[in-house]
C-alpha cells in the first residue's frame, strides 16, 4: 500500500518519441482546431465551463447587490429577470454539467489505462457544439436578447403570447446545443469505460470516479431527451404556432413542467454524482487507506441514478396533481437520502480508520460533506408536501439548492482541481492560497445562504427584483449580499492561485500525492499517448498493490494511433483498434449544426439549409480513409495478460 510503482519503468525515451510523434496535437492554431486528444478537449471543457462560472458569478453578485437593500435601483425588473435567468441557465447548462463532463473525459481514459476515449472525433465535435451554444446565449444576453423567463421557463409565461421577441427562442435553442454535447460525451464515457479498460480491470476493480461518470452518462442519455423535447415543443409553439402548451387548443401548461422536471431533477444528480466520485477518488490519498465500502459506494451511486428519475413531481407540489400521486414522490424524495447517506457514512468510516493529511483537497472534501449534509436535511424537509407548500418558490428553496449544489458539486470540484492540477499541468497549486480559498469559500457560503432559510420562512418569494421596506427582509438580505462578496473573493484567490502556479508552482512528479489509481502511473502532465505501455491491473488500487513495478502489456502499434479494446466484464484483451487521428471535420460539422439551429430560431428555413450543409459535412467526416492495414485486429481470447505478439 505504501510502495508506489516506479514510473520510470513505464517511460522509455525512444518509445516516447515514436508514440508522441503519432499522438501529439498538430502545432499552432490548426492543431487547436483539429485535436482529438481527450486531454486537450477535456481541458477546454473545464476552462470554458469555468469562464461561464465566472460570468454567472458576476450575474449573481449583481443580483445580490440589487437585493441588498429594499427598493434598490441597480437593476430594473426587466434587467433583473434577464440576470437571474442567465445565472440559473449558465450555472445549470453551461457550467455544472460541462465541467463534470470535462473532468470525466480527462480522467476516465487515464483511470482505466487507455490511450484515448472511444470516439475521439465525436468528442471534439461535442465541445464545439457546447461552445457555440454558450456563445449564442451570451451573445444574445449582451444585446438585450437574454432570456428572461427563468432557467426553467414555465409556460405560458415563456410561450409566444407572454414572452415577445426572440429571447426565449435563443434560450430554447441553446438547450439543444448543450444537450447534444452532453449526449455525445455520455456515449463516449460509457463506451470508453466499458470497452477500453486495462487488462485485469474487471468491473469490481473499476475506480469509483469511473463508475460515477458512467452512471452520470446513463442518466444524461435518459434525461436529456426530455428537455430536448420540451424545448423543441416550446420552439415550435413560438415559431410555427403549434399548441403543445395552449390549453385553449387542447394543450396543457403543465406538460412543460412534467417534461422539464423529468430532466431537471436527474440533472442535479448528473451534476452531483461525479462530485461524489471525486471525493471517493481523493480520500485514499489523504487518509492513506483505500476508501471503505467499495461495493456499497458503487451500488449507492447506481441506486441514486435510478431513484433520481422518480422524484420530479416534487417540483410541482403546488400544482393540482392528485394527492396520492404526490405522496409517491414524497416517499421517493425522502428515500434518496439513503444511498446518499451510505456514501457519507462510508467516507466517514474511511477517515475514521485512516490517517488524515490536511491538504487543500481534503479540506474541500470535508467542507463538501458538511455543506451537503445541511442541504440534504432541508431536502428531506421539502420532500414533505405540506411543508413544501409553505416554502416552495421562496428563498428557503434557494438556500436548499445552493447548499446541495455547493456542497455536492462546487466543493468537490475545487477539491478535484487542487488534487488533479499537478497531473494536468505538472505543477502544484499553492497550499497557502488553497487554504485561504477554502476558508473564504466555506465562510462565504454559510454567510450568503444560511440567512436565506429564514428569509423564505418569512415569506420572501424567489425571483423578485426588489422587496418593500416594510417586509423587514432588508437585514438578512444585506448579510447574504456581504457573504456573496466573500465567495467572490475566494474565487479571486483561486484564480490567482491558478495563474501563479501555472508558471511558478512547485514541480509535481508523477505521483505527488502518493495515490493509488492509474492516472498517477504516468508523467505529469500526462504524455499525449497517456501510457507508453498498457498497464495490467490486479486490484482496485493498482499503484499500491503492485509493489515496485507496475506490470504492463506491450504490443500496440507505434506508428499509428491504436488503442486496446477489452471485454466488458473481466477486461480481457479483445481487439486492437485504429483511431482516425487529428482532423478538422468535427469542427466543421459542429459549425453546420450551429447554422442549423441558429437559423431555426428565426425561420423554419433552417431545417432544409442546415440539413443539407450538415449532411455534406458529416459525409466528409465519416468518409473512410484508404488504409492497407485493417483498422480492427481481433486478439485470441486465451492469451494471458502478458506480452502480446504484434
Amino acid at each position: 500500500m505504501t510502495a508506489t510503482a516506479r514510473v520510470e519503468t513505464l517511460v522509455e525515451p525512444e518509445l516516447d518519441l515514436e508514440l508522441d510523434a503519432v499522438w501529439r496535437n498538430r502545432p499552432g492554431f490548426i492543431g487547436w482546431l483539429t485535436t482529438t486528444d481527450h486531454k486537450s478537449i477535456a481541458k477546454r471543457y473545464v476552462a470554458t465551463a469555468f469562464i461561464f462560472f465566472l460570468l454567472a458569478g458576476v450575474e449573481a453578485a449583481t443580483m445580490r447587490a440589487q437585493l441588498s437593500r429594499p427598493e434598490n435601483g441597480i437593476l430594473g425588473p426587466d434587467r433583473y429577470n434577464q440576470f437571474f435567468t442567465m445565472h440559473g441557465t449558465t450555472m445549470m447548462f453551461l457550467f455544472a454539467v460541462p465541467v463534470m463532463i470535462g473532468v470525466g473525459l480527462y480522467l476516465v481514459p487515464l483511470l482505466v489505462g487507455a490511450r484515448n476515449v472511444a470516439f475521439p472525433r465525436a468528442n471534439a465535435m461535442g465541445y464545439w457544439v457546447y461552445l457555440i451554444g454558450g456563445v449564442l446565449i451570451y451573445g444574445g444576453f449582451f444585446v438585450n436578447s437574454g432570456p428572461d423567463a427563468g432557467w426553467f421557463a414555465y409556460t405560458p409565461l415563456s410561450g409566444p403570447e407572454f414572452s415577445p421577441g426572440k429571447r426565449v427562442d435563443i434560450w430554447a435553442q441553446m438547450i439543444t446545443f448543450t444537450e447534444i454535447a452532453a449526449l455525445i460525451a455520455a456515449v463516449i464515457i460509457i463506451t470508453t469505460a466499458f470497452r477500453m479498460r486495462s487488462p485485469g480491470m474487471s468491473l469490481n476493480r473499476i475506480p469509483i470516479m469511473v463508475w460515477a461518470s458512467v452512471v452520470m452518462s446513463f442518466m444524461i442519455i435518459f434525461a436529456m431527451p426530455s428537455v430536448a423535447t420540451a424545448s423543441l415543443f416550446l420552439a415550435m409553439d413560438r415559431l410555427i404556432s403549434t399548441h403543445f402548451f395552449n390549453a385553449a387548443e387542447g394543450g396543457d401548461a403543465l406538460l412543460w413542467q412534467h417534461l422539464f422536471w423529468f430532466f431537471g431533477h436527474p440533472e442535479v444528480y448528473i451534476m452531483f454524482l461525479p462530485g461524489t466520485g471525486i471525493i471517493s477518488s481523493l480520500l485514499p490519498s489523504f487518509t492513506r487507506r483505500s476508501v471503505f465500502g467499495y461495493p456499497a459506494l458503487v451500488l449507492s451511486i447506481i441506486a441514486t441514478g435510478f431513484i433520481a428519475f422518480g422524484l420530479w413531481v416534487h417540483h410541482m407540489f403546488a400544482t393540482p396533481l392528485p394527492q396520492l400521486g404526490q405522496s409517491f414522490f414524497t416517499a421517493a424524495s425522502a428515500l434518496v437520502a439513503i444511498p446518499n447517506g451510505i456514501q457519507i457514512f462510508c467516507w466517514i468510516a474511511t477517515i475514521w480508520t485512516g490517517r488524515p493529511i490536511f491538504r487543500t483537497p481534503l479540506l474541500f472534501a470535508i467542507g463538501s460533506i458538511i455543506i451537503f449534509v445541511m442541504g440534504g436535511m432541508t431536502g428531506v424537509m421539502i420532500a414533505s408536501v405540506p411543508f413544501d407548500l409553505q416554502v416552495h418558490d421562496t428563498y428557503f428553496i434557494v438556500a436548499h439548492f445552493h447548499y446541495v449544489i455547493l456542497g455536492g458539486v462546487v466543493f468537490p470540484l475545487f477539491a478535484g482541481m487542487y488534487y488533479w492540477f499537478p497531473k494536468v499541468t505538472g505543477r502544484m497549486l499553492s497550499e497557502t492560497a488553497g487554504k485561504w480559498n477554502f476558508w473564504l469559500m466555506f465562510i462565504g457560503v454559510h454567510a450568503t445562504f444560511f440567512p436565506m432559510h429564514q428569509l423564505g420562512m418569512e415569506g420572501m418569494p424567489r425571483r423578485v427584483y426588489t422587496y418593500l421596506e416594510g417586509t423587514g427582509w432588508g437585514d438578512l438580505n444585506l448579510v447574504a449580499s456581504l457573504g456573496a462578496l466573500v465567495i467572490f473573493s475566494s474565487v479571486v484567490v483561486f484564480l490567482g492561485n491558478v495563474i501563479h502556479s501555472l508558471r511558478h508552482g512547485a514541480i509535481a512528479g508523477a505521483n505527488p500525492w502518493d495515490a493509488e489509481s492509474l492516472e498517477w502511473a504516468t508523467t505529469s502532465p500526462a504524455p499525449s499517448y497517456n501510457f507508453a505501455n498498457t498497464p495490467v491491473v490486479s486490484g482496485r488500487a493498482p499503484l499500491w498493490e503492485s509493489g515496485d513495478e507496475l506490470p504492463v502489456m506491450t504490443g500496440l502499434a507505434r506508428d499509428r494511433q491504436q488503442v486496446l479494446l477489452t471485454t466488458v466484464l473481466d477486461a480481457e484483451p479483445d481487439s486492437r483498434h485504429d483511431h482516425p487521428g487529428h482532423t478538422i471535420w468535427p469542427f466543421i460539422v459542429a459549425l453546420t449544426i450551429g447554422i442549423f439551429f441558429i437559423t431555426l430560431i428565426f425561420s423554419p428555413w433552417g431545417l432544409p439549409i442546415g440539413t443539407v450543409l450538415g449532411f455534406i459535412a458529416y459525409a466528409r467526416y465519416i468518409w473512410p480513409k484508404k488504409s492497407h492495414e485493417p483498422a480492427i485486429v481481433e486478439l485470441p481470447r486465451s492469451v494471458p495478460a502478458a506480452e502480446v505478439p504484434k
Partner: protein
Amino acid sequence: MRCGQVTRVLLALLALVTLATTGCKREERRFREVPPAADATTNVVMSTIQPGPSIVSVATEHPYDQNAYAISQGQRLYVQMNCAGCHGLAGGGSIGPPLLDDKWIYGSDPSNIFATIVEGRPNGMPSWRGKLSNDQVWQLVAYIRDMAGLHRKDVRTSRTDDMAAVSDNQNRNRQTPRPSSDAPASTQP
C-alpha cells in the same frame, strides 16, 4: 496572428454586429415612452397627391417600429379594448373592416393609423382621444401593422394562448398595401 485566426475574429465581429443591430431594437422594453403625440395628428396627410411639381415624402417613423414588446402589448390592448369586437379577433373583420389585408381605407402609414384611432372615423370607428395614452395608441398602431405582416419576420407576434381562430401573424405573408381608386395610397409601404 495567422490567416485563420484573423478570419475567425472578423467573422465573429461580423456576427456580433449583425446580432447587435438586429437585436437591440427588437427587445427593448420601454415603459415610459414619450412618443410623438399631437404633432402626429396635425401633420397627417391623407393623400399622396400634392399641388405643384414636387412630391414630399410624408412617411413617418413610429416609435415602436420593429419593437417586439410593443407589438405584443398592442396585441393585448387589441383584445382588452375590444377592437376585436368590430374588427375580428384575428383582424379578419366583421362589422368593421378587416385589418389584416392590403386595403387601407385611411392609409397604412403609422401616422394615418394613429390618427384613425385617436380621431375616430365615419361609419363607426370610435375616437379614443383621451381614453388611451399616446403610448398605448402607438402600441396598437404597431400591432395593426403587424397583422398585415408589415414588420420584419423576427419581430412579429406569434399565436396567443387562445383558440386557433386567432391566427399567427408571424407566418403570414406580408400584405403590401395597395393603392386603390377610393382610398389614398400610403407613401410608406
